[in-house]
């Protein structure tokens, strides 16, 4: 103030000499770090993209399947040549149904059924699943015998692959699985509109089969569903109850510390060890059936429990202590405090942990191999006590198959598994949002 009063103007202070505080170096380090970060993210994204591209490009064709529509004549001379079906109903089951389909195709293509070479080619053209398909029609309604109706018959896996362009037709005929004659028929039928691809419902409904065209994941989907249900019903209540007790009620002693350390260790135990444990305890000791999804579900429960306990405890710890004090200060009992205030606030975390645990269990293969779920199961299990397989085990089994048509089914199965996993993670996110949005 006196300066202004005396001189009228204020001069700027003289800047001291600039110090080198390493600004350039610090900014360079930051820029480098950002580049490393972007590189790391890019590498991850590239691997993800490559994986998804290779799976989807190989697998999308598994969802369609080539079939040929034929006017099948249910000729009694073929089905029941000695006319014994009144006295012996088993005749209808054992009849030579593929011959009906072959005959219909021969007529459609316009050559005589007694052309032996062509008949052999015909057998390779149509899938042997026609046996079951046509038998089921006749068994359901024996009055179709003697009539003609259009039936969609699957082509063999090789024709299916060839029609989808997966077999290189430039290779000499002797070195490939489809003959020139079959390719000619395929093109002809396709032009006539009789042969076409349709959605492959069998992939979702069929059980195991050595013929790729009739192999499906129905057993695996049902088996995995049962196991997830068992894991959810057993692991969630047990895990949440254990966490609540350990976190809110148990005294902090050496013993509870020991339990805590062991739960953390349990989460890191390789899953195959749980498989051995399940084999020893559930199958050998309790005598539960081998290959059954109930055993698989229990083994996966053991494996998922530590994950759920750790996630639940973390969610409980994250609830602010002020809420606990508020409830206790009002005279709520410990149990009321936990169930009225802490648990609702911890719910999003618990659900997220549970679903992530379930997703991990859904993708688990090794323990299931040990309890015999890597089996050839053709019939959809009707209860969790029936033999079943699981989605990842089905993938493992198809990966061991040699035929070209199993490659696309393998990728198709992976796509289905990934869709299930994504759906579960999405559910976790939605549930978390929903519960968090309450206030």
């Amino acid at each position, binding site marked *: 103030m006196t300066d202004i009063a005396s001189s009228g103007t204020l001069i700027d202070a003289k800047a001291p000499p600039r110090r080198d505080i390493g600004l350039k170096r610090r900014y360079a380090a930051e820029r480098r770090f950002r580049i490393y970060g972007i590189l790391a993210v890019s590498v991850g994204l590239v691997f993800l993209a490559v994986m998804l591209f290779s799976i989807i490009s190989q697998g999308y064709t598994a969802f369609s399947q080539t079939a040929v529509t034929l006017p099948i004549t249910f000729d009694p001379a073929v089905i029941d040549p000695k006319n014994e079906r009144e006295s012996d109903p088993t005749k209808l089951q054992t009849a030579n149904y593929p011959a009906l389909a072959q005959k219909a195709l021969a007529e459609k293509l316009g050559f005589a059924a007694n052309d032996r070479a062509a008949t052999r080619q015909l057998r390779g053209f149509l899938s042997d699943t026609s046996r079951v398909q046509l038998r089921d029609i006749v068994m359901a309604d024996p009055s179709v015998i003697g009539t003609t109706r259009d039936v969609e018959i699957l082509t063999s896996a090789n024709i299916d692959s060839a029609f989808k362009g997966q077999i290189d037709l430039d290779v000499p005929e002797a070195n490939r699985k489809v003959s020139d004659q079959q390719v000619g028929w395929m093109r002809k039928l396709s032009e006539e509109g009789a042969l076409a691809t349709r959605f492959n419902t069998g992939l979702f409904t069929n059980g195991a089969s050595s013929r790729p065209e009739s192999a499906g994941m129905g057993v695996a989907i049902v088996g995995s569903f049962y196991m997830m249900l068992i894991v959810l019903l057993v692991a969630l209540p047990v895990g949440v109850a254990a966490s609540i007790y350990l976190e809110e009620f148990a005294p902090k002693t050496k013993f509870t510390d020991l339990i805590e350390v062991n739960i953390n260790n349990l989460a890191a135990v390789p899953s195959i060890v749980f498989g051995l444990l399940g084999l020893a305890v559930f199958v050998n000791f309790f005598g539960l059936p081998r290959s059954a999804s109930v055993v698989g579900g229990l083994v996966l429960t053991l494996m998922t429990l530590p994950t759920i306990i750790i996630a639940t405890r973390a969610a409980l710890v994250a609830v602010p202590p002020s809420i606990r004090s508020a409830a206790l*200060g009002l005279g709520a009992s410990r149990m009321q405090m936990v169930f009225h205030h802490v648990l609702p606030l911890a719910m999003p975390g618990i659900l997220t942990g549970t679903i992530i645990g379930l997703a991990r269990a859904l993708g688990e293969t090794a323990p299931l191999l040990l309890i015999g779920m890597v089996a050839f199961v053709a019939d959809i299990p009707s209860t969790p006590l029936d033999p079943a397989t699981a989605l990842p085990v089905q993938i493992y089994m198809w990966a061991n198959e040699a035929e070209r048509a199993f490659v696309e089914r393998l990728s198709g199965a992976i796509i289905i598994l990934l869709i299930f996993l994504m759906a579960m993670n999405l559910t976790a996110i939605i549930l978390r949002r929903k519960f968090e949005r309450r206030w």
Partner: protein
Amino acid sequence: MNLMTGSQVENAVHQQTGGVENTPLKMRGRKVNVFYGPKQALFGVDLDVRQNQVTALIGPSGCGKSTFLRCLNRMNDTVDSARVEGDITLDGENIYDPKIDVVELRARVGMVFQKPNPFPKSIYENVAYGPRIHGLARRKADFDGIVEKSLQRAGLWSEVKDRLHEPGTGLSGGQQQRLCIARAIAVSPEVILMDEPCSALDPIATARIEELIDELRQNYTIVIVTHSMQQAARVSQRTAMFHLGNLVEEGPTEKMFTNPDEKRTRDYITGRYG
């Protein structure tokens, strides 16, 4: 605070003590020792709380005043390592007696915390929660009555009566603290413990709470921990000074702020330390 002349102080002290001595004791602490693990936090504290009065606990940070407060409704029980020795009575009954149920005790001795901590539920639910768990009401109309009365006593009714079903966490800090007071008085406690209830609030909200404390004194016995000398002087009838886990001095607020017996009290009040 103006320093009074010697005769004025004597006069004031005489009046205060005369009045105070006739007031019945609500709570009585005798030789209270508190340990957190191996560390002793309180050393043989003898302190009385008189009915329908505001008792302020003052002292520098870490002196044990909050620890003592938390002994009065056994909130220290929730700390695993905490151990309390000595006698604390409520209406002559030892509250650490195994026969005394801690849940019932806390329904009689309510608490308001340093940071406003409403439940993440509606304003209505915040207030109705205590009466609900203690079964103080059955019908909706009874709950409505308790909620309205409690919010009115806490001076919050006019501000929230149109949004009772909005979340309590959406209120301002001062409103949240008054909601917590309403929540505490909804269970009709006899004593209300307040642990630095204004430390997270601005001066205007603080003034509201202080007014409220003075009104609540008519019906409740209040023990308040505070860091603010002015607040202790404004709201309390008796003040207790803690230092390093010891009770330095206790007496009528008027006397404590004008003519304390202990040098440590005088130094703290005049700002030499703390």
